[in-house]
């Protein structure tokens, strides 16, 4: 019983951190602040991953997103030195359109959640399968071997594409 209360408390805290970070990342006028809020949001998501017993994914999320992606964002923001005040909000037809689209997304998911037949066991009692490196390796090198190769090729082509794009055009 104590464990269940703890799990729910941690879920609430991490969910709040995630949502607040996401709202900050989307709405803050300063681009550097937006990147920092994205970092906070990623920390919250990593906490949620830990709570879902996906320890390796939480570690990778911090390593790849917080370590590489957000650092790259900050690097580009500071390289370009764009004035923060220019990053305003589009106030026209697209505001209405986006709010309507978001309302549709929320309504759709809410309708799905109300009528869905989903497995709802107690999180503490579910057997954790994603907590060992071995289980990842087994799937990655048997069932998903072809996707692993394709993703490796994708990374190579992305690297070549970046080199080609960032070359000075003559």
């Amino acid at each position: 019983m104590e464990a269940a209360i703890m799990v729910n408390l941690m879920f609430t805290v991490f969910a709040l951190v995630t949502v607040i970070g996401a709202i900050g990342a989307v709405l803050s006028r300063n681009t550097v602040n937006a990147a920092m809020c994205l970092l906070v949001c990623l920390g919250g998501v990593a906490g949620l991953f830990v709570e879902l017993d996906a320890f390796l994914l939480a570690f990778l999320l911090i390593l790849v997103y917080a370590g590489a992606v957000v650092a790259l964002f900050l690097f580009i923001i500071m390289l370009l030195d764009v004035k923060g005040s220019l990053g305003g909000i589009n106030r026209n037809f697209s505001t209405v359109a986006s709010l309507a689209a978001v309302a549709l997304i929320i309504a759709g998911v809410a309708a799905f959640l109300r009528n869905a037949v989903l497995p709802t066991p107690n999180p503490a009692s579910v057997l954790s399968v994603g907590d060992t490196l071995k289980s990842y390796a087994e799937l990655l090198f048997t069932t998903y071997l072809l996707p692993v190769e394709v993703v490796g090729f994708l990374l190579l082509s992305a690297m070549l594409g970046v080199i080609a794009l960032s070359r000075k055009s003559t």
Partner: protein
Amino acid sequence: MIQSSLLAYIGLSAILFAIGFIGVLLRRNAIVIFMSLELMLIASTLALVAFSKFNGTMDGDVFVFFILTVAAAEVAVGLAIVVALFRQKQTIQVSELDSLKH
């Protein structure tokens, strides 16, 4: 306090996705639009990990691997495009990048 059930995780994932979607449609700064795209990808990974955990399978967790890889490649290429655009036009406001319109 919220019960940490599968429904709660899916709901949270939908909220994150919606926030990212608002960002993509509302903001005019190309870099912030990119961050919102990342937010939407992360929302989908959260749903995948939650489904994977509550169904007792590993496949969702492995998909997250691939999503992380694709997101990293996408950010690298996207930011290179932003830098190339900034070199050409001296701006990254998408409202001013409308040469394809005219």
